């Protein structure tokens, strides 16, 4: 059973790839990019979702699923709960984390805001992937107004 710190450090290395490729493109096809990171997060989120015990899958409604993400999933992945969940009750949810662990190691301050999206791409995918396993198609984006607070916006896609 791997400690949570290992994931954090591995994630940091993956994000560092983004800078590496900008400066020195190597051999091979697709480079590490925000969409690649998001895609990996999606696959991991799906796999995590598949490992949930059956009773958690019996959600009564969409809001229950989002609450599950904010509590159980977030605690499992980041050892804390999401700090707030808001919705317009029309399929859009905003999940706010006031001290997102993957951003904590970055200094607070406006000069790092530009880099913040790189640290959020994987997690957006993770949310989208877990939702997918729970039968919900979504678009997930993230924004940072001031480190280390960030917001994840989940927009449910009606098929």
């Amino acid at each position, binding site marked *: *059973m791997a400690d949570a710190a290992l994931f954090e450090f591995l994630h940091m290395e993956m994000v560092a790839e983004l800078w590496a490729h900008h400066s020195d493109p190597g051999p091979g096809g*697709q480079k590490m990019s925000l969409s690649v990171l998001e895609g990996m997060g999606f696959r991991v989120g799906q796999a995590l979702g598949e*490992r949930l015990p059956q009773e958690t899958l019996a959600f009564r409604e969409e809001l229950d699923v989002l609450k599950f993400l904010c509590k159980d999933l977030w605690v*499992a992945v980041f*050892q804390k709960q999401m700090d707030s969940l808001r919705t317009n009750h029309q399929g859009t949810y905003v999940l706010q984390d006031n001290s997102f662990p993957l951003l904590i190691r970055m200094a607070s301050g406006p000069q790092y805001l530009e880099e913040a999206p790189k640290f959020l791409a994987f997690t957006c995918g993770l949310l989208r992937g877990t939702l997918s396993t729970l039968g919900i198609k979504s678009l997930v984006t993230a924004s940072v107004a001031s480190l280390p607070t960030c917001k994840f916006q989940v927009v449910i896609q009606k098929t």
Partner: protein
Amino acid sequence: MSRQANRGTESKKMSSELFTLTYGALVTQLCKDYENDEDVNKQLDKILFSYFLPRGYNIGVRLIEDFLARSNVGRCHDFRETADVIAKVAFKMYLGITPSITNWSPAGDEFSLILENNPLVDFVELPDNHSSLIYSNLLCGVLRGALEMVQMAVEAKFVQDTLKGDGVTEIRMRFIRRIEDNLPAGEE
């Protein structure tokens, strides 16, 4: 950790799988990066091998701080103490397993860590035909990077691997030299 007792084990389980799942996704992605290039594909194992060593090293360099902060172990006085700390504290803390320490060299500068399984691959499906070397090298890099930060230059390599059909997974650790600041030389 989750405060609800009945959710406790699920949370811990998911948290620990996150690392291995992410590692697996990264490897899969890297294989995809190169699958269109015929020449590169033949070299894929070598490329992935060299990819993970420096990445593991970078992780190790940061991990050691986390480890020292959380474990309260003091400075190790010799390689035997180091071996004990690696096996009984570090591996236990980060991977939840305790390898056994065997096969000490007469000079006391080499030993083996024996694990029943390759710890990184519980939930990973190996891409077709690619050897487990690629997984191993991340761990070797981590060990090297972490120990360098405590003034030890070491070599770590997998000499047996259950993924390759061996009975156990064996990591061979070799002490190269102490990285000196002010300590007197000639401790041999």
